[in-house]
């Protein structure tokens, strides 16, 4: 069982990492999702595996699985969800604004300075 | 009494297993995309249903109380299965069917999925 889980973690990590190294934002996000799965399972397994010993107290139970990693993974899942949502949104906005969903930027693909544009807007606002 | 329960439970489990398998099997056996839709949406309904009934009986047998919450799962499935089937069918119609390949509509103009957009947004 442990071997199955470990190999699943490994495969998910490997596939996720491969996708994270692609050049477009969307596959990178998919890769992140896979890696997130992998790490959640990893963190979960750090409390060791147990079958049918849910950490819900009841008088008949003789043992429980480790509740702490479960709580941690729960937090981690939620946080990862928030992060994914944000990165999806930023990637989408970047694509819509730049019409390019490449994840790599070259130093001079838009050389004109956007910081200036910010302030031009600002100045106009003020005027 | 327990014997009857056991037999009943076993029967339901076996039946559900068979139907569950048939549902998934049909998915690869049938060659027409619309036909494939029939396999899971029907067979698994009873498949899951059988398991749930077995579960109810089991609780009744082992704890002597009527645990009905499995019924909720059935309720959900019955409520949702038609909708998902409807959507998957619409996907098929959208991609593969034409007004000609479908039966005549009757008193209306066309089938909804193939109907031209009613509220076409005005491009500005």
């Amino acid at each position, binding site marked *: 069982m442990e071997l199955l889980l470990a190999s699943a973690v490994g495969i998910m990590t490997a596939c996720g990492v491969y996708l994270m190294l692609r050049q477009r934002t969307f596959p990178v996000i998919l890769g992140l999702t896979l890696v997130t799965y992998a790490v959640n399972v990893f963190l979960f397994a750090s409390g060791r595996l147990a079958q049918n010993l849910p950490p819900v107290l009841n008088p008949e139970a003789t043992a429980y699985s480790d509740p702490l990693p479960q709580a941690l993974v729960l937090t981690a899942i939620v946080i990862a969800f928030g992060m994914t949502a944000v990165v999806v949104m930023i990637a989408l906005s970047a694509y819509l604004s730049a019409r390019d969903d490449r994840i790599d930027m070259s130093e001079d693909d838009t050389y004109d300075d956007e910081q200036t544009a910010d302030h031009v807007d600002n100045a106009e606002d003020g005027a | 009494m327990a014997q009857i329960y056991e037999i009943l439970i076993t029967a339901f489990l076996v039946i559900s297993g*068979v*139907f569950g398998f*048939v549902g998934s*099997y*049909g998915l690869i*056996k*049938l*060659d*027409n995309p*619309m*036909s494939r*839709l*029939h*396999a899971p*949406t*029907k*067979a698994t*309904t*009873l498949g899951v249903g059988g398991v749930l009934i077995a579960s109810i009986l089991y609780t009744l047998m082992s704890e002597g109380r009527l*645990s*009905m*919450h499995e*019924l*909720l799962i059935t*309720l959900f499935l*019955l*409520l949702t*299965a*038609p*909708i998902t*089937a*409807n959507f998957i*069918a*619409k996907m*098929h*119609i959208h991609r593969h069917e034409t007004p000609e390949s*479908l*039966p*005549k*509509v*009757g*008193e*209306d*103009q*066309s*089938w*909804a*999925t193939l*109907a031209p957009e009613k509220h076409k947004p005005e491009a500005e």
Partner: protein
Amino acid sequence: MKILQRLVPHPILTVLLTVVWLLLVNHFSLNSLVFGLFLGVVIPFITQPYWPDRPNLRNPWMILQYIVIVLYDIVVANIVVARLILFKRNKNLSPAWVCIPLELRTPEAITVLAATITLTPGTVSADLSDQGHSLLVHCLDAPDPGAVRDEIKDRYERRLMEIFE
């Protein structure tokens, strides 16, 4: 009365929800009932903007009858379809589209009909016509599509007409 209608926009829903609560809790007690009822009133009240129409169901006895028929048909359907899938060759199947002209008008009724069709023998509700006056049904194996149409109209739609309209 108006106030009561405001407060309990869908009385059947309230009952349904209370039952759902009891099922969820899976333990009947006064506490569960009171709390379930409370939620059964509060939740429809909160969500009523999302369900503005109020379908009125007329014939509770018919409803029960209908449910039994459908459950029975589902069991039969499963056996039939399982046989088709397991033992009949693909080329011997004759799938068909069937158009079912509708007399039902309320959305709720049409939905129940469509759902019933999907849950029962070898049929799937695939689409509505653009005015909602016909239902498109796909049959897994229907050498005679007309028979399927007639059975649906007779076995289900007629009963639903009595319940809803």
